[in-house]
């Protein structure tokens, strides 16, 4: 049976990994290739590089990062951030990305999902969806710009639309849970997963291995993504996988 995937996410700007990476024993903790190699050896099932560069030069440097990473890393690599057109996607895939993750551009122009999945195949088009609960309205809405801007698009409506436009996968981040480390948004993720047939990567809220056990026991999502807990070595991927295995959750052990 298919394994539940554990995916570390690295923020890259101007070709360098940023944001609190505390690994000991690395020559250069800002080097994406070195960090990617480390995660590969630790048993990560896939890697996400999120390009948070603000400049064109930064986005261009990302292509070098992908090329260099793909030369030494033989697990899937997903690139997100700053993707606005089919030509951006082509550049990333040609550099060696296996999947791209589109966020704000898809909300601005949903046809991009359709066009890209037709051109490159659904399998490499992941749509990142940032959701936040609106207590007044009693429902979840899609947010953009790293979660800071609310749209009037109900989350379930958008998720269904992404699937029908040809998205091959969804990366769902629960903004209320992100960074809080008190667990994933189980209720939302379970419902979201039931509402579509494509695989879902859950993000936001992981603070310890038990949160992943809960995620995979209480929902049928395909993967769990996290950033800081892996970078700060609060959770080691090898340990996490062993704990999941001990809880009868199928994972890939290398």
């Amino acid at each position, binding site marked *: *049976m*298919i394994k539940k995937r554990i995916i570390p996410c690295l923020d890259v700007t101007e070709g360098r990994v940023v944001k609190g990476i505390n690994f000991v024993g690395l020559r250069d903790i800002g080097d994406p290739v070195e960090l990617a190699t480390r995660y590969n050896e630790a048993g990560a099932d896939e890697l996400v590089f999120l390009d948070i560069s603000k400049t064109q030069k930064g986005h261009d440097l990302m292509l070098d990062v992908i090329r260099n990473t793909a030369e030494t890393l033989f697990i899937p690599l997903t690139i997100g951030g700053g993707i606005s057109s089919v030509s951006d996607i082509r550049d990333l895939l040609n550099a060696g990305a296996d999947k791209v993750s589109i966020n704000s551009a898809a909300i601005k122009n949903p046809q991009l999902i359709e066009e890209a999945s037709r051109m490159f195949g*659904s399998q*490499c088009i992941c749509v990142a969806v940032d959701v936040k609960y609106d207590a007044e309205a009693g429902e979840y809405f899609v947010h953009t710009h790293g979660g800071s801007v609310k749209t009037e698009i109900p989350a379930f409506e958008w998720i269904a639309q992404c699937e029908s436009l040809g998205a091959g996968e969804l990366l769902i981040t629960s903004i209320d849970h992100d960074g809080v480390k008190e667990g994933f948004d189980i209720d939302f993720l379970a419902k979201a997963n039931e509402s579509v*047939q494509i695989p879902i990567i859950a993000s936001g809220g992981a603070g310890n291995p038990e949160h992943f056990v809960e995620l995979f026991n209480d929902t049928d999502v*395909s993967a769990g993504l996290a950033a800081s807990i892996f970078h700060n070595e609060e959770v080691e991927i090898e340990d996490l996988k062993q704990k999941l295995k001990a809880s009868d959750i199928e994972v890939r052990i*290398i």
Partner: protein
Amino acid sequence: MIGIIDYSLGNIQNVKNALDELGYPSLFSSDYEVLKACDTILLPGVGHFGHAMAHIETSGLKPTLLKLAESKPLIGICLGMQLLFERSTEGNANGLGLLPGDIVRMETEHPVPHLGWNTLSSRSPVLDGKDVYFIHSYIATRTDTVIATSEYGIDIPAVVKKGHITGIQFHPEKSGRAGLEILRQAIEGGI
């Protein structure tokens, strides 16, 4: 020398990276004379079956591939494996017809695409029990050429083989060390 078929669809560099890592010299080409001089032909590919075949037909690559397949070991990966079959419902197009059977959309209670790491079941010890990375929505109809499967509500044909023609549904170049070893064995005729 391994000839990687270049048909301008999708990223083919990752396959070359894997061959580099394994120490096999390789080149990209769509030219018969160049490919004829290679020991093994590798047909990679991701994307849409119909689009890929349309490109293979209009570019004149089809007769080249068929001629090469008469004598040379040919390994198809992912979409490249599916193209080896007779037909696909993806784009309702004819394939290369080097392997018997068709390609159809998978019907399973699980999410589609079949995306992620799954375990191989096979009589071949090189394949059996290995976790490899899949990403696809279409599958080969079962025939006696299937030598490895993965369980996903249904049996997914994972490796097919007929004589010197081998098809690999998953991505050995993205399946970590286990995948590289399978690719090496496929090239060496060990599976």
